[in-house]
């Protein structure tokens, strides 16, 4: 693997050129360009907020701030994995002619999506700042916890890259992978605390005496990361959660950051990154000669 990383380093300029190319192509023929990638989360979060605040009558103030904090990283992961399915397959005509480290293909896709995610986060900060200034939202976007954000971003990147390696490599041989991944990501959205709070999950399972299932739920590193982003970006706000069946919802602070869950997510992400890269390297010479 070391030789492969060295070779990748030798081609780093091509990797950046490919990232640049992907960013350029994406909105080349559209009028609003980058704003399309902001419009999607904004509209989605608007709908989620309406459903949860008004239909389900959750009394959390500034619900949208919490939803966005988890939805932006989720969307990064989702789009990244969906795009990665075609990243190698779509380039087969080129890699049949020219040699370069094949891992550049999925990696450039992950990096391009990551840059989009970072830009979206910048817009999110502006949003938080406006909420803080205009509506007097208890949370300022600038607390010391913000320094934890880069750590989350790195773990998130490793996770996305690892899964992308698997998906992009296997989708060359079995295009079923693309469909399986599409369904898995759709279901994952419901099993990830984006629309709701992980506290809701915790109290619901605790009332049934099934706290172990709370840990099972968090074997999905995306779930852990969603909550971690929330606690990093919107740390001091009050949320409304039902502490048990039949009880009235109460306003409370979010549960303390669970380091055990976090380290599990880090471990899962790193294992996926290393095994994904290994699997990709094992298959990459057969991409051009798939039967």
């Amino acid at each position: 693997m070391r030789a492969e990383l060295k070779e990748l380093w030798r081609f780093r300029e091509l990797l950046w050129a490919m990232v640049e190319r992907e960013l350029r192509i994406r909105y080349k023929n559209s009028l609003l360009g980058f704003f399309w990638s902001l419009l999607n989360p904004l509209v989605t979060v608007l709908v989620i907020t309406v459903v949860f605040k008004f239909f389900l009558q959750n009394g959390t103030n500034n619900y949208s701030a919490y939803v966005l904090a988890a939805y932006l990283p989720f969307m990064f992961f989702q789009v990244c994995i969906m795009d990665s399915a075609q990243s190698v397959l779509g380039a087969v005509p080129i890699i049949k002619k020219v040699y370069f480290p094949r891992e550049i293909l999925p990696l450039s896709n992950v990096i391009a999506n990551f840059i989009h995610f970072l830009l979206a986060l910048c817009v999110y900060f502006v949003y938080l700042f406006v909420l803080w200034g205009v509506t007097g939202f208890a949370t300022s976007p600038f607390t010391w916890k913000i320094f934890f954000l880069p750590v989350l971003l790195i773990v998130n990147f490793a996770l996305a890259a690892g899964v992308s390696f698997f998906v992009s490599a296997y989708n060359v041989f079995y295009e079923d992978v693309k469909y399986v991944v599409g369904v898995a990501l759709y279901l994952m959205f419901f099993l990830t605390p984006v629309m709701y709070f992980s506290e809701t999950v915790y109290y619901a399972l605790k009332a049934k005496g099934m706290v172990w299932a709370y840990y099972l739920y968090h074997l999905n590193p995306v779930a852990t990361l969603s909550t971690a982003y929330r606690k990093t970006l919107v740390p001091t706000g009050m949320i409304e959660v039902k502490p048990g069946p039949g009880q009235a919802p109460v306003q409370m602070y979010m549960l303390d950051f669970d380091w055990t869950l976090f380290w599990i997510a880090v471990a899962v992400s790193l294992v996926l990154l290393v095994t994904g890269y290994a699997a990709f390297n094992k298959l990459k010479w057969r991409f051009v000669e798939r039967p």
Partner: protein
Amino acid sequence: MSEVSVSVRDLHKSFELSHTGAASLKTTLLWWKRKKNLERIDVLRGVSFDLHRGECLSLVGRNGAGKSTLLALVARVYRPTSGEIETHGRVAPLLELGAGFHPDLSGQENVVFNAMMLGLSRKQANERLDQIVEFSGLGRFISAPVRTYSSGMQARLGFAVAINVDADVLIVDEVLAVGDIAFEHKCFNYIEGFRSRGGSILLVTHNLVTIEKFADRTLWLQDGLVAKEGLPSEVIPYYRQAMEGPQAAP
């Protein structure tokens, strides 16, 4: 002429051929069916040759003889099943009809990207840009998206990139006859210069006139083996005879 730029020893390459065409989970999971669907094909069965600096070696053979596979192996696109390939210096394939060009990007953006794909650094690619545009003769069209180009323009641009990346070995697979006569002339002149500077060429073409004009040596591939090797004037007559033979016989 004695320095070797590509050395190929006892090269074997086989592929798995699928009769169903569909690559899906089904074919992997149903392993007892797989054996019927997949067939191994030995495309190259022990090929050896040397390509010297400044030399133009042409490959001939009927369709499916393994010429393109051999080129792809030299370009490091495939891994050999067994045998060795040793290359000295940079190998640049001439991409056919703008493969690797993105239709929505301008000619200029594509040139820089393709030059980097062929092994130049970004700095080198930007330095060569003017030279490449000049050679392609595209002029002001260079800033238009490649999708607006004619196939001739795309091929000219692709050719211009490949020969301006300072490769040591140029791989030419049946792509020379793309531009008009003037451009073809320009290419041939360039290739002469390229060779006199020590560059070598691996050429695949069915145009025997081109071979007689350019190639120093000819390698005739038949069923994955070298049938005959030598001066074009020595090999071509036999090759021609073999190709025309069966039809000429009563």
